[in-house]
C-alpha cells in the first residue's frame, strides 16, 4: 500500500470550470453519477419495451404496430439493455465507482483519466445501441443471447444493420467495462487507507471487487465471440456457421459450430449473473447490518462465500445448454457443479437472516427493500435448483418457468437492491433524504407487483408454455385460463412499470428539495459516512487520509453510549466515550 503515502502527499487539484467538473470529470463520484444516469435512462427504455411486449402477450393484437418483427426486436433489446447496459453498468460503473474509494478511504480511483474514458466509452456504446432503432431493418431481433446462425441470417429482424450495431456496441461496452474494472480492482488492492485491511472492508466492496474480477475474466469471451460473429456477418467467415441453407437457398458457409458460440457466450453469461448478483449481495449485507443495528452475521464466511461463488461461477456455464445438443454426458458434471454453488449461496441467505436475529430492526425504506430482496432472491434461487438439476431442466427449459426464474433472481432481486441502496446512500450523494412516504408507496407496489408478475408465471412454464412466442393462442394444449393469467400478469407489469414514476420523481425532487440529512443520518459505522463534507468533495478526505481502527460493523457494542462506532474511531477515543454501566 505504498500508494497511500503518495496519495496523501499529492496536492489536491480542484477542477474549476463547469466542463471539467461535470462533463470531462475525473472525480469518481461524478463519473459514478454519470454512469448511473445513463444506465437509468437506458433502463427506462428497456422498461417501456417490456410493457409493449407484455401488451402483446396479455392482449394479443392490442397494439397496432406490434407485429412479430417488432415484438422480437423489443424482446431482444429489453433483455440486452437490462442485463448489460442497466444492471452491469449501474452496479460496477455506478455503485462501484461511488463506493469503492469512499469505503476503502482512497482519494479517488487510481487511474482517474482511464475512469473518465470508461464512462464516455459506455456512453458511446449506448448511443450505438440506440442508433440501431433508426437504421434500415431496425434493431436486431435475435434474442438477447444472439445465437447464430439465426442472429445473422434472413428471417430474423435486424439482420441487415441491427445485429452489426449490437455487436459493435457490445465491443465498445466491454472496452468501457475493462477500463473501469482495472481501476476498481487496482484501487481495492493498492489504494486502501491506513489500517484498512482486506478483512476490514465492507461486504459491498468485497462484492463489487469480486464481481469486477469476474467481469475482467468473463467479458473477453463475449468480446471474441462478438468479433467472430461480426466477421461471419460482414466478410463471410464461418466461425459459427455450418454448412446450411437459408430460406431454402444454399449458403457459402461451411464448417463452423453454432454450439461454440453458445459455450463462449455462457462462459461469459453465467459469470455475468454473478457480476450483477455479487455487488447486490454485498450491498444488501451492509444495509441489513446498518438498519438492524447489528454486525453482519458470519462476516468471514460471507467473504469466503463471495469468493467461492465467484470461482464456481466459471465452471457452471453449460447448465444454460442442457438441451443445446452438446454431448449429453456434460450434463452430469454441470448439474453437480451448479448444485454445489447453491451451498455458498444458501450460506449467504442464512447469514442475512441471522443478521436480523436479535437485532434492533428499524423499518426504514432501505430495510424494507432489503427484506424484500431476501424473499425474492430466496424464491428465485430455489427455482434455480429446478433448472440446475439437468433432468428437471429438460421439460422446463425454454418455457416461462425459465423466464420467471431469471427475472426473479437476477432481474427483480438486484433491482430491489438498487432501489434499497439508492434510498440508503442518497443522503451521502446529495446531502438530502429521499421522501419516506413516496418511498413506501414505491416499495409496496414494486415488491408486491413483481411477485404477482413472476410467481404465477412459473406455473405457465410447468404447463409447458414456450417462451419467445409472439403469439401462443393457436396452441390447443394451452388452456384459455393461461391466456387469462397472462392478461393479469400484463396488468400487474403495467402497474409496476408506472409506479417507477414515483421513484424517478422522488429522486429528482429530493435531490433539490429533500430534507437535509446531515453527514450520517443512519448512524452507520463504515467509512463512507465519515467524510468531512457531505456530499464529499473532490479528493474525498481533505488534508489527511482517514485512519481505520476497526471493521465496519461495530454496532451496538456493549458499554458504548452510541449504538455504532465509526471505523475511524480509535480505541483511545472510544475509551473516552465509554459510559459507566
Amino acid at each position: 500500500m505504498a500508494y497511500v503515502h503518495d496519495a496523501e502527499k499529492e496536492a489536491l487539484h480542484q477542477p474549476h470550470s463547469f466542463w471539467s467538473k461535470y462533463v470531462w470529470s475525473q472525480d469518481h463520484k461524478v463519473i459514478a453519477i454519470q454512469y448511473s444516469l445513463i444506465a437509468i435512462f437506458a433502463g427506462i427504455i428497456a422498461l417501456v419495451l417490456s410493457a409493449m411486449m407484455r401488451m402483446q402477450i396479455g392482449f394479443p393484437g392490442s397494439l397496432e404496430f406490434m407485429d412479430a418483427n417488432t415484438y422480437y426486436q423489443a424482446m431482444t433489446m429489453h433483455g440486452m439493455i437490462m442485463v448489460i447496459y442497466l444492471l452491469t453498468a449501474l452496479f460496477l460503473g455506478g455503485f462501484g465507482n461511488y463506493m469503492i474509494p469512499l469505503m476503502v478511504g482512497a482519494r479517488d480511483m487510481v487511474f482517474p483519466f482511464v475512469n473518465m474514458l470508461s464512462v464516455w466509452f459506455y456512453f458511446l456504446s449506448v448511443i450505438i445501441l440506440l442508433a440501431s432503432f433508426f437504421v434500415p431493418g431496425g434493431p436486431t431481433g435475435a434474442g438477447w443471447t444472439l445465437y447464430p446462425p439465426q442472429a445473422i441470417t434472413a428471417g430474423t429482424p435486424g439482420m441487415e444493420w441491427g445485429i452489426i450495431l449490437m455487436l459493435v456496441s457490445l465491443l465498445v461496452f466491454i472496452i468501457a467495462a475493462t477500463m473501469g474494472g482495472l481501476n476498481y480492482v487496482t484501487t481495492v488492492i493498492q489504494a486502501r487507507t491506513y489500517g484498512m485491511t482486506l478483512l476490514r472492508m465492507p461486504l459491498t466492496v468485497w462484492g463489487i471487487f469480486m464481481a469486477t474480477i469476474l467481469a475482467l475474466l468473463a467479458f473477453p469471451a463475449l468480446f471474441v465471440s462478438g468479433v467472430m460473429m461480426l466477421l461471419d456477418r460482414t466478410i463471410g467467415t464461418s466461425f459459427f456457421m455450418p454448412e446450411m441453407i437459408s430460406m431454402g437457398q444454399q449458403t457459402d458457409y461451411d464448417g463452423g459450430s453454432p454450439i461454440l458460440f453458445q459455450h463462449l457466450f455462457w462462459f461469459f453469461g453465467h459469470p455475468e449473473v454473478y457480476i450483477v448478483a455479487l455487488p447486490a449481495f454485498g450491498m444488501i449485507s451492509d444495509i441489513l447490518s446498518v438498519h438492524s443495528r447489528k454486525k453482519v452475521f458470519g462476516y468471514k464466511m460471507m467473504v469466503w462465500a463471495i469468493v467461492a461463488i465467484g470461482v464456481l461461477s466459471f465452471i457452471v456455464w453449460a447448465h444454460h445448454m442442457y438441451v443445446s445438443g452438446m454431448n449429453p454426458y456434460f450434463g452430469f458434471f454441470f448439474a453437480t457443479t451448479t448444485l454445489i454453488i447453491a451451498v455458498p449461496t444458501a450460506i449467504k441467505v442464512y447469514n442475512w437472516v441471522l443478521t436480523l436475529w436479535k437485532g434492533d430492526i428499524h423499518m426504514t425504506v432501505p430495510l424494507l427493500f432489503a427484506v424484500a430482496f431476501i424473499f425474492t432472491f430466496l424464491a428465485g434461487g430455489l427455482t434455480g435448483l429446478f433448472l440446475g438439476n439437468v433432468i428437471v431442466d429438460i421439460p422446463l427449459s425454454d418455457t416461462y418457468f425459465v423466464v420467471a426464474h431469471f427475472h426473479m433472481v437476477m432481474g427483480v432481486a438486484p433491482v430491489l437492491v438498487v432501489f434499497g441502496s439508492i434510498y440508503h446512500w442518497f443522503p451521502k450523494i446529495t446531502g438530502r433524504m429521499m421522501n419516506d412516504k413516496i418511498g413506501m408507496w414505491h416499495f409496496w407496489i414494486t415488491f408486491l407487483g413483481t411477485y404477482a408478475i413472476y410467481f404465477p408465471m412459473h406455473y405457465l412454464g410447468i404447463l409447458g408454455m414456450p417462451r419467445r412466442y409472439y403469439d401462443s393462442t393457436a396452441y390447443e394444449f394451452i388452456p384459455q385460463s393461461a391466456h387469462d393469467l397472462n392478461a393479469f400478469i400484463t396488468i400487474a407489469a403495467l402497474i409496476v412499470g408506472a409506479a417507477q414514476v414515483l421513484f424517478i420523481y422522488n429522486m429528482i425532487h429530493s435531490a433539490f428539495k429533500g430534507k437535509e440529512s446531515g453527514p450520517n443520518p443512519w448512524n452507520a459505522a463504515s467509512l463512507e459516512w465519515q467524510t468531512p463534507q457531505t456530499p464529499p468533495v473532490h479528493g474525498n478526505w481533505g488534508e489527511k487520509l482517514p485512519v481505520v481502527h476497526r471493521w465496519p460493523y461495530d454496532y451496538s457494542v456493549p458499554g458504548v453510549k452510541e449504538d455504532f462506532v465509526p471505523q475511524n474511531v480509535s480505541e483511545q477515543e472510544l475509551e473516552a466515550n465509554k459510559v459507566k454501566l
Partner: protein
Amino acid sequence: MALAIILVVLLIGSTIFQFVNPWSATPVASNWGSIDNIIVITSVITGIFFVGITLFVVYALVKFRHRGPSENGQHQASYEPDSKKLEWWLTGITTVGICALLAPGLVVYDDFVHVPEGATEVEVVGKQWMWSFRLPGEDGKLGHAKVKLIGMDNPFGLDPDDPNGQDDLLINTNVLHLPIDKPVKMVLRSLDVLHNFYVPQIRAKMDMVPGQVSYFWFTPTKEGRYEILCAEYCGVAHYNMKGHMIIDSAENYQAWLSEQPTFASSLVSGSDDGGVEQGRQLAESSGCFACHSIDGSKSLGPTWKGLFGKTEVLMDGTTVVADEAYLKESITDPNAKMVKDYAPVMVAYPLSDSQLDALVEYIKSTP
C-alpha cells in the same frame, strides 16, 4: 409489522396457489413420468426451505423490531459473536438437501442419456419454419445426408449413392406418426438455424443444430394427437412452427407407414402437371407455409386460398389484382406492394424463372 404480515400472507397465498391452480402440467404421454416425480421431490424440498426461512424472517421482524430509545442505556441489539457451530450445521443441512435433489435427478438423467437397445431411429428435420421426418425403412438404417445435396428434387439432401438411404421413408409434411409402446430415438437435424423439437406431453426435448446431429429418446405410452412446437428461437415465425405427432396403435401405424414414399420412389417420380407439384414442393422446402396458409386461415401473410385473381387492398389504400405479375413481384420483392394489415416481415426469395412459374401455378391451384 406490516411487512411481517404481508410476508405471511404471501407465504399462505403461494402455498394455496401451489395446490389449487388450473395450470398444472399436461398429462404425460411418455415414459418420462419419472421426470415429473423429480419435479415433485424438488418442489417439496425447496418448498420446505422457502417456508422455513421466510417464517424465520417474519419472526425476527416481529420480535426484534425497534422499540424506541432504550431506557437503561443497554442497546436493544445484541453484540453476539459469530457461531461457527451454527454455520457448519446450516452448511451440513443444505448439503444434505442438495444431495437429495441431485442424486435422484442424476439417476433419471442417466436413463435419459442411455438409449435402449432396439429403439427405432426417427429423423426429425427442422428448417425455418416447418418440420419434416424420415424413417429408416426396412433395413432399419438411415442413409447418409448432406446439406449440400439439398435441391428441388432432394429436399432432405440424401446421398443417392448410399444404399442405406434408398428405402428411407420421407415424410415431407408436418405430421409424424409413431407406434405406441415402442421406444424411439429421435435423431435431430436442422438445415438452417437452431430449432428444438418439443412436445409438452413427452416432457423430453432437444435442440436441433445445423452441422451436427443431436438426439433424445422416449417411449410413447398414450395414443393421441399431440402438438409439436419449436422451443428454440428460430426467427420471426418461430411461434408458428407447428406440427403434429400422432401416437397410433400398432395396426394403424402400419397402415400409415405403408403409404409413405421411399427415397428411391421419389427420385423416379415426377408427373407432368404443369409444375403444380414442383411448386408445392418448392413452397414446402422454402417454408412458405409458416406464414401462408392454404386453407384460408389467417397467418403472418395472406392466405393462398383463392388468392389468384383476387383484388387486394394495399397499404396506401390502392388496390391491385393478384395476377401472375403481382405474385411474382411479391415473391422477389415482397415489400414493393404490401397488402394492408400485414407486417413487412417477408424476405425476398431470389427464385429462378422456372421456379417462379411453378410456384405461381401452385398458388393458382389452391382454389
